[in-house]
């Protein structure tokens, strides 16, 4: 009897209508291609027609040493690529932001722009410019080192297995250090004056003010930067491709998941592309990134303390 008392609420059509454009566009350009990739990875081309093979492609990817060695090598390189970004790019970004936000710094706007400019450059320009800078024949790097008497330190970094990946990671750091800098800079500017003043009244100034007051307040931003770096690095491809080519030489030492996927999907030279194996690799990349983002969302972000002012 009580059930009859509450009047039925009218259907709220407007929610659906307002959501529709975003949902439709996102579905069309993100979800459908993603689903298509996942579907493609479950098929195989057998005598000119697509045949469903279940997880067969993944079994090949992990079970066949011809594929698995390449995959694990690419994943290892990719993890190393990410670690270098985390250890070099983000601390430098935070440091630059802290320096820029110092009120006593002159020409702050100029520095900020100058450091951010490489980020908006094309990969092709960056890859080509650095290839020239580091060229043992016509590059400025050997000449500059010669100038200060350190010529012996120069080696053809991009051509040596043990250095090439580190060199490329640092080039990428050079290019993208502007992004953490900008985000942290914005976070630092949004710290209210009262908090800083209160700290000063308590005698916390200078470096210890940064460590004890500002750093805890910008931790959420650092978290966001970490996750952006993670996603960006595991999707990276362009820099390696422009600087080292699709075979990511020497001896696959700079091969990351992006270049590995490219060779599998589109083929290279006499190698014929295999879209199904390519899709299997793309699916693995998707799962790796999804896993990383989930770890961050559920384990890290929920524990970050936020401060409301």
């Amino acid at each position, binding site marked *: 009897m009580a059930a009859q008392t509450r009047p039925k609420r009218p259907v709220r059509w407007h929610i659906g209508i307002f959501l529709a454009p975003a949902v439709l566009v996102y579905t069309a350009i993100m979800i459908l291609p993603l689903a298509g990739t996942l579907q493609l990875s479950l098929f195989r081309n057998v005598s000119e027609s697509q045949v469903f093979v279940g997880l067969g492609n993944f079994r090949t990817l992990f079970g*066949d*040493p*011809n*594929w698995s060695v390449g995959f694990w090598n690419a994943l290892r390189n990719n993890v190393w690529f990410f670690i270098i970004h985390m250890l070099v790019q983000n601390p430098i970004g935070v440091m630059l932001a802290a320096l820029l936000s110092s009120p006593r710094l002159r020409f702050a706007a100029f520095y900020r722009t100058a450091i951010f400019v490489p980020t908006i450059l094309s990969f092709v320009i960056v890859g080509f410019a650095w*290839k020239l800078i*580091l*060229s*043992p*024949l*016509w590059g400025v790097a*050997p000449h500059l080192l010669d100038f200060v008497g350190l010529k012996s330190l*120069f*080696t*053809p*970094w*991009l*051509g*040596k*297995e043990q250095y090439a990946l580190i060199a490329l990671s640092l080039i990428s750091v050079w290019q993208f250090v502007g992004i953490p800098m900008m985000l942290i800079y914005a976070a630092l500017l949004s710290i209210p004056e009262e908090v800083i003043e209160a700290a000063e009244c308590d005698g916390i100034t200078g470096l210890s003010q940064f460590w004890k007051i500002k750093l805890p307040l910008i931790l959420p931003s650092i978290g966001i930067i970490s996750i952006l770096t993670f996603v960006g690095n595991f999707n990276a491809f362009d820099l390696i491709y422009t600087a080292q*080519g699709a*075979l990511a*030489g*020497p*001896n*696959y030492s700079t091969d990351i998941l992006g270049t590995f996927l490219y*060779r599998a999907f589109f083929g*290279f*030279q*006499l*190698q*014929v592309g*295999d879209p199904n194996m390519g899709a299997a690799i793309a699916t693995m990349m998707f799962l790796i990134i999804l896993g990383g983002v989930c770890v961050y969302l559920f384990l890290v972000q929920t524990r970050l303390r936020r401060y409301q002012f």
Partner: protein
Amino acid sequence: MTTKLLTALLLGTSILGSAGVAYAEDVTLNIESWRGDDLAIWKDKLIPAFEAKNPGIKVVFAPSAPTEYDAALGAKLAAGSAGDLITCRPFDKSLELYKKGNLADLSSLPGMENFSPVAKSAWQTDDGKVSFCVPMASVIHGFIYNKDAFDKLGIKVPTTRDEFFAALDKIKADGTYIPMAMGTKDLWEAATMGYQNIGPNYWKGEDGRQALIKGEQKLTDKDWVAPYEELAKWKPYLGDGFEAQTYPDSQNLFTLGRAAIYPAGSWEIGLFNTQAQFKMGAFPPPVEKAGDTCYISDHTDIGMGLNAASKHADAAKTFLSWVASPDFATIYANALPGFFSLNSSPVKMADPLAQEFVSWRGKCKSTIRSTYQILSRGTPNLENETWVESANVINGTDTPEAAAKKLQTGLDSWYHPAK
């Protein structure tokens, strides 16, 4: 961009097709090609020469961009709008077209007898019974050297390996020139200009290549490892930092006169002639002892086939027979020095460097690159692996034996020749 180009091409062919109907007695043949660079040569030299001899047949050369050619051609063949004559890529890509029924069988075409079996191998079925494209051009490997540098240092052109390394030692000791301009950064230089250049002398050209395909020889055999051992010896003669030296770097080093010897492919001739300010010469890969049979890589690169759906098959065959004739070969080879006609009858060429290259055909035995036919169909891809391993061997990060073993293991994993 691709679609636009494709539409333009399709539109172009349809207009030209109807133009052919308008002049009822004239047949118009369309040529599909990726060699946009050759447009002027076709328009001004080749087609007028053909049309003068064959009134009633008009020919139109309609190239598309190299990177789009295969996809555009595939789409046009499927739609039935492709040209009558199709420029053939070597090996598997054209073989696939033949198997799909897009290319006609040309085994009995008059003029095919002008070509050697090696020349035809790029456009044949695996058993060698059916040929489906007329071979047009090949590129030859060897070494181009700086004649002024050789004269100054009093070096004679080396013919044996000992002389070759003695020459390199002498250039290195003098110090004016980098002995050899080659880098390993782009990987393919090491494989194509290195391994495939000097290799045929070790594995005895076609004998070794065929034995490898039949499974009678392995990449770990002495004849296939030995070229790697020689490559490993090249390392001290390359320029400083050769590990990061790219292909354009190598070209510039040589044309600027800073390096004495350049492991080359004949396609460089055109560029080097315009850029180098010194006299150049060329020599084939040195042999072990004076008087040994020499082998050269005379790699088939371009051919031309007949669209199986062509409405003017007879006219097209007339044209293809002309492509197979010495007339065509002479015009083509002179217009594009470095791209040599595959015709058995000798072609007179004006360019001295090109003459030198082609003269080796007379004294050496020709073969093609070992990895191209059949052996690069699987995963891992033998050609790509050869690039990587050749660079590794020169860099010294892999021993010749280890490199050969890796290649053979990779090949064994998918290639099982019937014995």
